[in-house]
């Protein structure tokens, strides 16, 4: 069983999600990019990761409001230190999960 309208929504969503993923890969990878653009793109990952992460740590709800007293933020501090010391992705994920689990069962 399938709803016709849902299928159109899914196809449309798939198309508008795929194109922005595909376009730069195919059209930028073959070109010599200007130096300023290479330098700008080099800064983007640090920017995106921080922009994804920080609001998750210090805000909550819809609409969002500042929430400093939440385990997301406090667990992030030891997790951050662990990641800084070890640079280990898998280890950081395990430690972060364990601490978050602990924090949730304490609170």
């Amino acid at each position: 069983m399938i709803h016709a309208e849902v299928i159109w929504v899914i196809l449309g969503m798939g198309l508008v999600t795929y194109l922005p993923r595909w376009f730069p890969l195919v059209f930028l990878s073959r070109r010599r990019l200007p130096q300023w653009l290479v330098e700008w793109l080099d800064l983007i990952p640090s920017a995106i990761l921080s922009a994804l992460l920080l609001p998750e740590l210090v805000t909550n709800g819809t609409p969002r409001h500042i929430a400093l007293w939440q385990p997301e933020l406090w667990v992030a501090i030891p997790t951050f230190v662990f990641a800084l010391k070890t640079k280990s992705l898998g280890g950081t994920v395990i430690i972060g999960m364990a601490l978050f689990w602990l924090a949730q069962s304490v609170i």
Partner: protein
Amino acid sequence: MKNFWNNPISPQNKRGTKTSILQGLSAAWPICLGYIPIGLAFGVLAQKAGLYPIEIMLMSILVFAGSSQFIAVSMLSTGAGALSIILTTFAVNLRHLLMSSSLAVFLGNATRRKLTLFAYGVTDESFAVNYTRFSGKIWSVNRALVVNHTANLAWIVSSVIGGYSGRFIHQGAFGIDYALTAMFICLLILQLKSRLYVLTAVIAGAVAVILSLTIPGSSYIVLASIIAATTVLGLKKWGAK
């Protein structure tokens, strides 16, 4: 132990395919761990919104973008029109344009077919994992493809299971809700190679928090990233004069 996580073997290794698969998998598992609870939660919500398991599976296969799938399902359940759902999806996922542009720098030698296949799996998480490894010069397009498609498989399977049985799975078990946050913390640290990157991250984080409080939706991610990268590049050029 550390070598296992960090994959220090060079891509020139000739025992090609098997090595690529193993290294891809060892890079992908933290992503999968993070996708499973989110995929289950998505499946549960989608089922509650009236989607059939086949539709849940199709959406996870064809869209493969977590936040926009959640938004689409909640819009469907409130009776929103197809066009407004599709336009919202486009706005939410426009950030992939920046991610693919950053990855393109490393993919000059890849065939168009591989790029077309690779583009399908660019998500926040796979981007961050692959970018970190590409910039560490230890990565290849084949390994990146394994990362993307393994993560995709975890997403599809967990969302379909959620659609059938997510109700019975205890939310929050083992702190698994924190898996992706912890992963982003480590990936961010791996990016902070000099003061310039730290400054970019600080500006982006601060602007993102302010914008996320003031404008609805998730456009704050793209806006904050562009503002931060442009500001820091401007400062760099101005400082160099």
